[in-house]
């Protein structure tokens, strides 16, 4: 893989998928050589991915890169579309993957570690594949990898809660993937192609009405992973019983990738703009349900999981407004959620390790026992609530702004509900912050900070949160072109099918 020829004119985006995949396959072999270096491999791989993605970023901003696999031209081959969205997500996945991998170095100490690392690599590889692919069946395949590795990672600890959640997750996920496959089959039957651009072109010419039933199936199937309200019952269980590092990835990456898929299907494939209002409502409903459930939780991880549902609702709401501003805001919120929730889960992870319980009340005195971790948690919480100068503020700002630009009265009411959700969110997050800092703690607890390898990723997350929060221009340029890529179907079709 050290072939310099690969990098002519920028690295090939396929490497983002293939290299981690190759290392995942090679991991057992490497394990024969040395067990100790195993855990450093994900770190290296995602560092590589991050570099590749960052190098690709300026290129794709000018022109999306079309990767035709096997040397055939679309629609006859599977193709990857490395547009701004894809590369942005790849970079985000690589970043989160890298930081969580560093955290994992010390966090995962028990169980079949080798398998954990393989699954972890594959989970994120699949996520990258989902965001890059331009073929709907290929999307399904990557989705399955994503789901199956999630099931197993949730069950990784092997305790009652983990297994139970995993089984429930698996049942729902399997039903979802079957529905997705039905949708794909219907689409293939109707249009005779699997390439997304080709499908979109045909749907444009036929009109989207006949494609509705397939869309319904696909949305339902993908919506399960995306945690849209009635489909998200697996999420609180799974996210709360997985190891915290996995929760960070599941919350920060997996569901957002799911939502990306939903949005991609909705926008690019079907473009059913008359139907978006439904998703606006759905987004608000998801937000409210998520926040309300989180509000009355005593289990910190469950609370964070429900909060993820709320955030997903907000993102869905933003996307469903489907203006350039709104989609930018939605993408921004995704970034902010990945960083914020990742940070929260990582911080909560070590606080749980130290206190030995997931009860919120057991976190008291953490501000003294592990000040840096507590600070990380606080910053993550503040960011998610949307307080400046953290990243949650500009993203929420963009979303509300775009919603207000819609003149309809219904949007004003929805904004009111969203803000109500934010207030509830603030209430439960601030309550935890107070428990951490301001509850009377036990006397005998000494300072016992998380290990350095766990603190470094938290610290980097914090820096990213504050830096982008203060200077959102770091990402808005990319987000703008990503949003226009998502919204502009014709351009997408043209860029794939010459």
């Amino acid at each position, binding site marked *: *893989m050290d*072939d310099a*020829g*690969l990098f002519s004119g920028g690295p*090939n985006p*396929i490497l983002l998928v*293939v290299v981690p*995949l*190759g290392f*995942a*396959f*090679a*991991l*057992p*072999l490497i394990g024969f050589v040395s067990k100790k270096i195993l855990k450093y491999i994900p770190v290296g791989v995602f560092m590589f991915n991050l570099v590749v993605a960052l190098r690709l970023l300026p290129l794709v901003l000018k022109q999306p890169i079309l*990767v*035709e*696999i*096997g*040397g*055939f031209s679309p*629609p*006859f*081959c*599977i193709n990857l579309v490395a547009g701004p969205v894809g590369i942005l997500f790849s970079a985000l996945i690589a970043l989160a993957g890298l930081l969580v991998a560093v955290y994992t170095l010390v966090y995962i100490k028990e*169980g*079949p570690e080798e*398998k*954990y690392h*393989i*699954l972890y690599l*594959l989970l994120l*590889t*699949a996520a990258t594949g989902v965001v890059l692919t331009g*073929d709907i069946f*290929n999307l399904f*395949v*990557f989705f*399955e990898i994503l789901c*199956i*590795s999630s099931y*197993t990672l949730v*069950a*990784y*600890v*092997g305790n009652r809660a983990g*297994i139970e959640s995993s089984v429930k997750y698996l049942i729902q996920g399997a039903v979802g993937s079957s529905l997705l496959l039905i949708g794909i089959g*219907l689409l*293939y*039957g*109707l*249009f*005779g*192609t*699997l390439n997304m651009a080709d499908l979109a072109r045909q749907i444009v010419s036929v009109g989207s009405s*006949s494609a*509705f*039933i*397939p869309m*319904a199936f696909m949305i339902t199937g993908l919506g399960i992973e995306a945690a849209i309200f009635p489909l998200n019952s697996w999420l609180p269980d799974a996210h709360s019983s997985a190891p915290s590092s996995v929760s960070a990835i599941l919350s920060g990456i997996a569901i957002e990738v799911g939502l990306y898929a939903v949005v991609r299907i909705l926008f690019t494939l079907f473009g059913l703009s008359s139907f978006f209002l439904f998703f606006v409502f759905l987004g608000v409903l998801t937000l409210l349900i998520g926040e309300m459930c989180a509000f009355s939780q005593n289990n910190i991880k469950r609370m964070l999981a429900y909060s993820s549902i709320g955030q997903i609702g907000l993102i869905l709401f933003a996307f469903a407004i489907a203006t350039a501003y709104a989609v930018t805001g939605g993408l921004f919120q995704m970034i902010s959620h990945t960083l914020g929730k990742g940070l929260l889960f990582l911080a909560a992870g070590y606080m749980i390790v130290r206190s030995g319980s997931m009860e919120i009340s057991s976190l008291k005195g953490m501000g003294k026992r592990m000040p840096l971790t507590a600070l990380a948690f606080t910053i993550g919480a503040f960011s998610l609530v949307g307080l400046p100068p953290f990243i949650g503020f500009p993203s929420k700002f963009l979303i509300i702004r775009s919603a207000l630009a819609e003149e309809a009265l219904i949007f004003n009411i929805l904004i009111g509900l969203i803000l109500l959700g934010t207030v509830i969110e603030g209430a439960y997050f601030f309550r935890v912050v107070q428990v951490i800092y301001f509850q009377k703690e036990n006397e005998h607890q000494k300072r016992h900070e998380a290990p350095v390898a766990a603190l470094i990723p938290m610290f980097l997350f914090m820096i990213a949160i504050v830096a982008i929060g203060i200077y959102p221009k770091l990402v808005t340029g990319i987000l703008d072109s990503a949003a226009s890529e998502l919204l502009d179907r014709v351009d997408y079709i043209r860029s794939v099918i010459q």
Partner: protein
Amino acid sequence: MRSIISILLLAFIAWGIVTVIGEIPFGTEKSRVGGHYVDQGREETGASNIVTSVVLNYRGFDTLGEVTVLFVAAIGLGAALATRRKKEKREIEPASLVLYTGCRFLFPLILLFGGYIFIHGHLTPGGGFQGGAIVASAFILVYLGCRGRRISETVSKTIESLGGLVFVVVGLVGLAVGGHYFLLNFLPKGELNTLFSAGIIPILYIAIGFKVGSELAGVIDHLMEESE
């Protein structure tokens, strides 16, 4: 009550499907993409089995994913079951001599048949997955018939890894040789309907065959171990 609601809902969904299924032409003609593969597949890939050419060349990336799914399942199953692996070996009642001998006799034959299936994947019906499944069935036979025999975990893991790696490396070589195309069929296509044709397809299928065989065998191994 619950089942009535379920039936009603499903009936409703079925009605929704009926509205769309009439529009899908049944048994009339191939799709544009399918037609293209049938018409051009021989020239473009050199495989006479068009399904194989689709699986491994046109949609080779899917297959890579598919292999990965299986890999994930095998690993995940290991992870799920391995956490409380019981170390002690229980006494197993040995199989009867007839069964034992018969199994041992059949085992290489089945293996051979499996190998045949995946090596000729590009010529005849079958391929890596099918062949791999047959290979795995040979192992099941041994497990069932000659109880106590186990496939070496190290060997199976190595084969799994190598199989996957071969796929990836072959693809990357294509990328390196032919410019921008991952999984490019860079080897000579050869003459149609001969064993040494279709470029990388047989190589990939052999890798897949080994990999699937060992993975399925491993899965069965794990499940049996747990169930004993």
